[in-house]
């Protein structure tokens, strides 16, 4: 699950980070770290460690 905030409104998207990020290109190749950051942010938001 990915949540997207636009103009202050947060929407839950029922998609995996890979799908949500499909429109973005990172030429330096940090995808793996971005993916990890998304998962970490989601965990933190759920109150996890």
């Amino acid at each position, binding site marked *: 699950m990915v949540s997207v905030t636009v103009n202050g409104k947060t929407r839950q998207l029922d998609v995996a980070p890979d799908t949500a990020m499909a429109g973005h290109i990172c030429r330096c190749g*940090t995808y793996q770290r971005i993916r990890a950051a998304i998962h970490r942010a989601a965990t933190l938001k759920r109150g996890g460690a």
Partner: protein
Amino acid sequence: MTTRSGTGIGRRTLLKGGLAMGAGLVVGFRVAGRAGDVAEAQTPGVLAPNQWLRIDRDGIVTITNSVPEMGQGTSTTMPMIVADELDAEWERIRVEQAPANPKLYGNPGIGGQQLYGGSHGIRSHLQMWRKAGAAARQMLREAAAQEWGVPLSEVDTEPGAAVHRPTGRRLPYGQLVDRAQALPVPADPPLKTKDKFRYIGKDRPRLDVPSKVNGRAVYGSDVKVPGMLIASIERSPVVARATVKRFDATAAKAVPGVKQVVQVTNGVAVVADSFWAAQNGRKALVVEWDDGPVGAVGSDAIAREYETLAGKPGVVARNDGDVDRALAGGGRTLEAVYRVPFLEHACMEPMNATAHVTREECTVWAPTQNPGGTQAVAARITGLPPERVTVHTMFMGGGFGRRNETDFVVDAVEVAKAVGVPVKTLWTREDDLTHGFYRPTSYNVVRAALDAQGQPVGWFTRAVGAGLLTQRGAVQPTQVDGSALAALRDLPYDIPNLRIEWVHRDMGVPVGFWRSVASSQNAFVVESFVDELAHAAGKDPFEYRRALLGKAPRHKGVLELAAARAGWGTPLPAGRARGIAVCFSYGSYAAHVAEVSVDDAGAVTVHRVVAAIDCGLAVHPDQVRAQMEGGVVYALTAVLHGDITLDRGRVQQTNFHTYPMLRMAQTPRTEVHILDSGEAPGGIGEPGVPTVAPAVCNAIFAATGKRVRRLPIRTDELKKA
């Protein structure tokens, strides 16, 4: 995506005011003064023993980094090195970007040119920077010894201060600056032993990342200068050497916002008050071109020409034993042809530069790997002496070797000179992909002879392509072009009879230094063919290589590490297979194991990549991992998609719909393992690229029995019949 609104003023203030940045809150890098007045040795209260650092009475340490930041992280690693030997407090460090001044900041790895490529950032500067920090530390210790009237040997340091161990007295560096300034600068100060390193070899958050996350970082294309106009250049449809016959600017000049239309070396520039207006003006422009000699060149013709030339002898680059006799010896022989395409760097930030030219001076803001070349080019165009050209080296949205070139600097300086006000010339994505300096296409014939045990007794390679140095006139066509032979000439395997031949054939397509240069194609050729030999011999591809690397212990080291961490030989889910490859490039040794599956339609999925790297001393280990991870994505993009083709001299790929980039969903799980060999540092920007293609293609063979000998991978060649 973080909003960028409201940051424009901040950026402009930054550029005009040149803020000094503290570690941890860096938003860009101030450019140190004008060329020449950097080492302020005579300024009271500033200890500046060399061009790399200065310390003021508040104990603030300002470090001047010469290596441009293109995302590789050197703007953090460089101050780590100086701060370690200085024994500075990280929080009191400020970092600024060096001005163009090759005398002070030339890259020892590239003959003193102020040019940064070839993964030289750390490996060619480490000792120099350590000494720079150590010299200052030595002077501060001496100053403290004088102050306290004690022997130098009793004075130690801790971060930011000199300490007298016997009495516990302590003096912060800032309070020692005036006394230290009067002391001679030691030429050969003692360096720390490895066990004393405080910053070197340890992970540290990058100074440039916060600004890149919050959008405040100033890349070349973000530069704003008061009164600046924006230019877009209509370039020839043909990739190079076409000329403008005539043009009609009437309609272009009628477009609102368009100020001027001027002809320059690289085309016809539409100068406007916004990029949008410049683009519209460009569309309204009528230009008649003479296509020139490259207008007749196409990819098919290049391929046919190379195939023909591969049948004729080339220049011998290496010749051990008697390969002809070995190949004719009656044993088993194998022959294969390997081909790779042209590739474009595809920096995420298209080429651009900003310039202001007056009668007295020239200022250039350029996202460049080549500050020295930028200065030289601007001096040539303006007729000013180099010291009157100030270069602000901006953050780059990718370099990869594309920004070694100075064509985009020529654009900005020529247009700015013509219009008399500051101008930013901005390329479109289409400009960028169709007017590059391409990784050369190459055609390679490989032959080998195996003895009765399957061991190779002869190896022959003839490579046909356009040599980078030859095209630039630095090497004659009849000579060996070293830039084309990396990873081919230095074949590490123990094979008694070996000949490597090179054929230069330049069809007029500009070729350039693409991340890992010739190693990017040659490792694919060599490591795929070694794999063919292993399978022909009925041996395990890892064990086969390992047995041939007796004289190459560091190759063997990373090969074994990658295999061990990848679980080489252990079972995989049905349909998956592993491939392995190893290569030396840019001072470092890398090996990859790829785990791959291929579906019935021929689509390749790379599930996992395990990398092993021996880059000697890993000054910033997390940055080593980051470069290796990025190298996998960069190389995999080329393996799966990268294919620049030409028709009548025109590059056929214009944007990401025809020149696709790897996306997150295609990115394999990547693990990086650093082998600590205790050796001096090697490069890290490039060595992670070459072995990815052969590891993936060898895995495809293991999975399907189909050998990929032409890149990029074509699904129709892999689909089930």
